[in-house]
């Protein structure tokens, strides 16, 4: 069982240094993800989900500081990496799909130029090889390769999110952290992207940490779900249990928070 663990986080604590002193945004969090597993991390805005996502990749920047705990990825101690190791490790072992596709893309570079930068930095391969890989990836996420020479603003929101997804796949990472990858999208596009992600995951078998505030969406896709409240994980269980047999009051509250089609209307 435990040899299947790809990510193992123990006692993680992250603080923001504020003018009023340190604010603990992540409080002694334990979580793990097995190889090929999809773990959902759900909670309301401000509970610390993005802070965890950034800390796991050591992309957190001041005023955020990791003040305790350990992060082990594929048997390696991530907090012990030096800058150079980290730069090689990021994107090739674990990559991140940011909450906002627009923030993740550089507006003055074409889609291909962004691909090429990451690909070249990590592999040292030629532009022609980068082009071939980029075309392959565009095919994987369902975008016409002719769009490679477009700038981000020329694409629709759904296409941009697909490009970000393709970027995360460039170096065939073993885990992808996805921070609200569909939150800003229309429901049909959201469904398209979610199916795309599920299909790619089934095809390549990478692990996913899937972050969202939408429990129903997450339940459609995750193997296990962790529920986060004010910096703490208050419940973690198999998706079926979180759906059918939630234990924590807050999990129940989240389920009751939005009407579903099953709700009786009560309209006279």
């Amino acid at each position, binding site marked *: 069982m435990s040899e299947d663990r790809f990510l193992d986080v123990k006692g993680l604590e992250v603080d923001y240094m504020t003018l009023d002193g340190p604010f603990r945004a992540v409080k002694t969090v334990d979580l793990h993800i097995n190889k090929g597993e999809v773990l959902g991390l759900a909670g*309301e805005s401000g509970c610390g989900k993005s802070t965890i996502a950034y800390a796991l990749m050591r992309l957190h920047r001041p005023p955020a500081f990791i003040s305790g705990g350990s992060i082990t990825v594929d048997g390696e101690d991530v907090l012990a990496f030096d800058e150079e190791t980290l730069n090689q490790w990021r994107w090739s072992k674990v990559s991140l799909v940011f909450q906002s596709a627009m923030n993740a893309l550089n507006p003055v570079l074409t889609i291909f130029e962004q691909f090429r930068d990451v690909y070249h930095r990590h592999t040292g391969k030629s532009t022609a090889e980068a082009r071939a890989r980029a075309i392959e990836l565009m095919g994987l996420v369902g975008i016409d390769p002719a769009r490679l020479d477009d700038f981000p603003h020329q694409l629709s929101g759904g296409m941009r999110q697909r490009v970000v997804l393709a970027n995360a796949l460039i170096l065939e990472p073993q885990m992808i952290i996805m921070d609200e990858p569909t939150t800003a999208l229309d*429901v*049909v596009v959201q*469904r398209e992207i979610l199916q*795309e992600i599920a*299909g790619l995951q*089934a095809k390549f078998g990478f692990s996913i940490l899937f972050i969202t505030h939408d429990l129903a969406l997450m*339940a459609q896709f995750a193997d296990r779900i962790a529920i986060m409240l004010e910096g703490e994980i208050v419940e973690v269980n198999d998706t079926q249990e979180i759906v059918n047999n939630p234990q924590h009051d807050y999990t129940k*509250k989240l389920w009751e928070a939005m009407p579903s089609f099953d*709700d009786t209307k009560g309209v006279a």
Partner: protein
Amino acid sequence: MSAPAFLTLDQVHKTYTLKTMFGPTKQVKALQDISFSLQKGQALALVGESGSGKSTCGRAVAGMFQIDSGKICVEGKPIATAHTSKEKRETARKVQMVFQDPFASLNPTHTVRHHLERPLKLHKRVPADSTLEDELHRTLTDVELDPAATLEKYPHELSGGQRQRINLARALAVGAELIIADEPTSMLDVSIRRSILNLMKRLKDERGITFLYITHDLATAHYLTENTAVMFGGRIVEYGPSDQIVRDPQHAYSKLLLSSVPSAKTKIDANFEHAKDFSNFADEVRKATAASTAPLASIGEGRMMRS
């Protein structure tokens, strides 16, 4: 024939002309042939993807701009032909908007008291047998806020949910009969969205307030409203009782929209090829829906669709 409607739209059109810095001007058909009516004390949901024209429709009803053609009537009177300023003020009073961003229409330098006192005085909403203070308390109680704890607060001292309640309170203070709520919960924390929906529902059921509810969320539309209009590309593609739209959608786009709503009970199809098929299918539906200029036609009791 049913009772005369509180609000009717008859073949409303609005096209925006965008002047791009380079190249030709671009026409955006924000509203095309929009017709519907809304009975007093009922709610109608405008549902659709972003850019489908929902907010434009709401702002047209609020009289915030001139429509190109068609007619919008409140209680049988066209809003565009209100000549005297008294008439204009009457319509402006009866029709109020609540926006997505609960901060947008609150002045950060003014207390809740100030926000509510002004409309109560301006529109002479304090009956002879009451006092301003009583009316302030009543209005806040109507939106389930504690008057003592809220009246002297500034907007930034309130939570997003409380701010949205203040926006509803202000509409009530003015004497709103129709509230156009444009995605009123989409910027709020998930766990408090439902309480705001419940409040709107209570205002409708108990106070007879009419709602034009703009949302991209079919589940909340179903929860709050009697009827739903599904919009796409500036047009209504399907109209009918909300529970029927949700249970038995007829238009291909309504079906697509509904089938895309996440449900915890069904796992997503994790087949790589199927994902492509679904995207291609979605594209086809969008294309066909955009291309059709067929009129809205009856497809049964209270239901309409464009073929």
